[in-house]
């Protein structure tokens, strides 16, 4: 913003002070804390899952299109590369699931203090890991590995 033409020395000093005002440090300055990491992971997994909906769309449309289209879909997601991606998405799903439940609990005003926050965060991490591992154990057990 340009300074007004008739500015006095006082207002230009104010302009200077405004220009050099301290800025709040941005995200990467802070040490990661359980509060911020839990929140950021919820958002990151949410975006990943939103992208995963394209895979759901691909699968449903392939299924409706015929056997050939479905074979392409199944071959891609059954490959090692596809399974690694699906593993990531399964973790994203279960993390977002657990953290979403945590948010619903927090909406009722519970677990808002520091102690409750830590407890809820650790339950979220543990729940996400257990559910992800459990899903893949069931998958490999049913697949006869």
């Amino acid at each position, binding site marked *: 913003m340009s300074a007004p033409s008739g500015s006095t020395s006082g207002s230009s000093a104010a302009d200077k002070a405004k220009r050099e005002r301290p800025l709040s440090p941005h995200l990467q300055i802070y040490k990661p804390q359980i509060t911020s990491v839990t929140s950021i992971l919820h958002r990151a997994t949410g975006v990943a899952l939103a992208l995963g909906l394209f895979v759901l769309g691909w699968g*449903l449309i392939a299924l409706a299109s015929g056997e050939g289209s479905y074979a392409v879909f199944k071959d891609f997601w059954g490959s090692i590369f596809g399974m690694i991606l699906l593993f990531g998405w399964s973790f994203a799903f279960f993390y977002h699931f657990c953290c979403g439940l945590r948010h*619903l609990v927090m909406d009722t005003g519970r677990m808002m203090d520091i102690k409750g926050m830590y407890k809820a965060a650790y339950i979220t991490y543990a729940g996400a890991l257990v559910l992800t591992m459990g899903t893949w154990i069931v998958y490999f057990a049913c697949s006869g590995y």
Partner: protein
Amino acid sequence: MTMKWTSGGMKSPLSRARGLGSAKSGSHHWMMQRVTAVSNAVLGLWFVWSVLTLANADYAIVRDWLAAPVNAILMILFVISSYYHAVLGLQVVTEDYVHCEGLKVIKLMGQKLLYTGLGVACVFAVLKVAL
């Protein structure tokens, strides 16, 4: 969604002059995010379980599974619920991180149109298999 052409009686004179400000839909967005979160939690577990059991199945078996009314209905509900929830979530992310007003409106519209289009395509695909 902050858009320049929204008008509302609850705006402060300054926000009205700027053309920005409350569109009075904040609580509706918040509430629908919770409603779809609850439905996603239930339907999502059903979906993961279904994928798990059908992952190695042949085309005909998967098709027959989706053609069953219960599965078709649950799948359509899951598509609507998850796509709606995704659009609400992506909207907040876009509003937080995209600071250029024009780009933000384009991205918000793009997300809504893309997910609406693909969501309708998903529902059509399920109906094509099931009916």
